[in-house]
């Protein structure tokens, strides 16, 4: 059963970066000028160029029927990998063998033409994605039903709402039937209900034994859909294996890089006290880039006191990214002498839902503000690798606070 359908060996993709923000395309004039210059001085034009390895010696293989999740931070090389596998661009080094028909979905609605009607775009987009005319015709009704656009089939898509547009585009792609399906972050479109529908469709595609390669930043989607994972970082393959392991590794990997924020140092006229750094940790003191939803966490802030004070207070606030304050906690006012200090704020009572929140830090003395840092640090609550905090929680999208109220059901008859 386990025969590799895709084999990738020593795959490298090199781009040449031009500095000084030259335009991406070259003008003939520049080439001629370069040539002329290098004619007189042999080695000058290389100075402004730098090589950039979008992929660096990546190797892996995919078995038929595997659903592979490819994860990594921005710039890890995920999209470049998909572009090479879908033959849009060629590798600089290495070798890839693919045994099967590939369809790739790197963007929703590639080739949609705004002037054409929904019906016409279904045919056009289908053929761009590699379907034959007969194949599209046979799935036409299914596509229309999935997209829920029956009434607007003969309206130009430029008059569609953006939601309708995206639904139609995804519907066409979802009805592809290749042996290998390559999907880039496309589920991040549409409303939540449609996202669920898309994910469900992807699951059923995967269930039919087709091979799927899927890039996403949504760990829950990747974990639901994929059995194998690849973790890329700056063009290198960090690890591959069962999806859960790869996700765990990714979260660990992330934590060392974003759990800690170092505040800018104020050289001129430093206030009487100022914060130096902030770190998000688990209760044992290990740094956490993303806090698993429902888990306790703590914030450790290092600060320096320059002058003795009578009523020193340090405070931490949590607000949404839209600056809606959720909670503020203050330390007890106390006299303090110059030196370096640390404070730890523990959170083990209120559980926020998944998402990113701002952490605001403030230092004051007897009600006078010394330093206020509203936009320096964030905390991310993630549902990846979470143990469900409370079995009663149905989903994390039902409110900002997920603490459950005590409830009891009494029989009344």
């Amino acid at each position, binding site marked *: 059963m386990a025969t590799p359908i895709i084999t990738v060996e020593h795959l490298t993709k090199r781009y040449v970066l031009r500095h000084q923000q030259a335009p991406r395309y070259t003008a003939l004039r520049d080439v001629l000028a370069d040539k002329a210059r290098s004619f007189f001085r042999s080695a000058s034009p290389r100075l402004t160029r730098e090589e950039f390895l979008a992929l660096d010696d990546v190797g892996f293989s995919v078995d038929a029927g595997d659903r592979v999740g490819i994860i990594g931070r921005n710039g890890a090389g995920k999209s470049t990998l998909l572009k090479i596998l*879908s033959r849009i*661009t*060629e590798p600089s080094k290495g070798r*890839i063998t693919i045994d099967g028909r590939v369809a790739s979905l790197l*963007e929703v609605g*590639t080739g949609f033409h705004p*002037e054409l009607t929904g019906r016409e775009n279904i*045919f056009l987009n289908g053929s*761009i994605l590699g379907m034959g005319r007969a194949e599209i015709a046979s799935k036409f009704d299914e596509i229309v039903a999935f997209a829920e656009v029956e009434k607007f089939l003969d309206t130009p898509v430029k008059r569609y709402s953006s939601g309708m547009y995206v639904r139609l585009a995804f519907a066409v792609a979802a009805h592809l039937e290749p042996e290998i399906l390559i999907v880039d972050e496309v589920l991040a479109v549409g409303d939540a209900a449609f996202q669920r529908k898309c994910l469900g469709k992807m699951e059923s595609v995967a269930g039919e034994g087709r091979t799927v390669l899927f890039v996403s930043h949504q760990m829950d989607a990747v974990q639901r859909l994929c059995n194998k994972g690849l973790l890329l970082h700056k063009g290198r393959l960090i690890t591959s294996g069962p999806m859960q392991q790869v996700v765990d590794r990714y979260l660990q990997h992330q934590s060392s890089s974003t759990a800690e924020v170092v505040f800018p140092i104020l050289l001129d006229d430093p206030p009487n006290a100022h914060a130096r750094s902030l770190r998000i940790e688990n209760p044992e003191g290990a740094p956490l880039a993303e806090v698993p939803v429902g888990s306790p966490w703590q914030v450790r802030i290092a600060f320096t006191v320059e002058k003795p004070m009578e009523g020193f207070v340090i405070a931490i606030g949590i607000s949404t990214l839209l600056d809606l304050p959720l909670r503020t906690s203050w330390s007890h006012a106390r006299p303090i002498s110059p030196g370096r200090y640390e404070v730890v704020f523990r959170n083990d009572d209120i559980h926020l839902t998944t998402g990113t929140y701002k952490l605001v830090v403030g230092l004051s003395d007897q009600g006078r503000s010394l330093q206020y840092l509203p936009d320096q640090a964030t905390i991310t609550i993630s549902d990846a690798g979470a143990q469900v905090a409370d079995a009663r929680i149905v989903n994390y999208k039902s409110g900002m606070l997920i603490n459950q109220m005590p409830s009891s059901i009494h029989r009344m008859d």
Partner: protein
Amino acid sequence: MSSYRIVLEPGSANRHYWRDLWNYRGLFGFLAWRDILVRYKQTAIGIAWSVLRPLLTLVVMAFIGWLFDSQLPGDVPRLLLVGAATLPWTFFSTAFSESSNSLITNSNLLSKVYFPRLIVPASTVIVCLIDFLISFVILLVLMAAYRFVPDIKILLLPLFLMLALVTAMGSGLLIAALNVKYRDFRYVVPFIVQFGLYVSPVAFSSADIYGSDRIPQALKFIYALNPMVGVIDGFRWCILGGQTILYLPGFLLSVGISVLVLILGIRYFRKTERGFADVI
């Protein structure tokens, strides 16, 4: 399990290129169909534009020919003489300029899906060909008006249409591929088209050039290098019958250049197309 095995390696020419091209013929059709559908959307007179544009060129060119008193072979009416040249010229100029820009206007496709890139400029040329066939109505009307009956040679017209196609396709492919990397060609193309109208026998006929004592031999040779000279002379020879003569050496030279440009165009296109997505 499919036997469709693909090996991707740097620089390896795609061995299945022509087979792929055949497999993607559906997309070719759809792209052409899209361009036809979209071409005259939201225009008041729609498809009439494909007749009106060459018609206006025809009138202006006939007027210029009359003004400079260019020769008329036999008793061929001037409108017919100019008409037999305007149609292939209009086809060439639109096909050439639109296919040159086709890769840029479809850059979203190039960077998101794989298909043999040759499809894009080729389908653009086909769309222009359909415009040409529609505009052929002009010539039929003119013939009817002048009660002009073409002789048997008109059956050879498809051959010369083929030649026009080869010329437009070859130059279009070459410039389209260059245009991806050097956008200078966006400015070069309109210039070539404008310039071409003056050096091609649209307002005048090749007999004016070859038969002139004033024009040195070297210039006549350079004139014959223009592939559109061959195309237009061929069209006139077919449509107007025995009234015009085909100057064979010049004609063969034009044909040679057309074929050469096509070969060059395809080779350069094939060589650069794998990098299109990276630079476009």
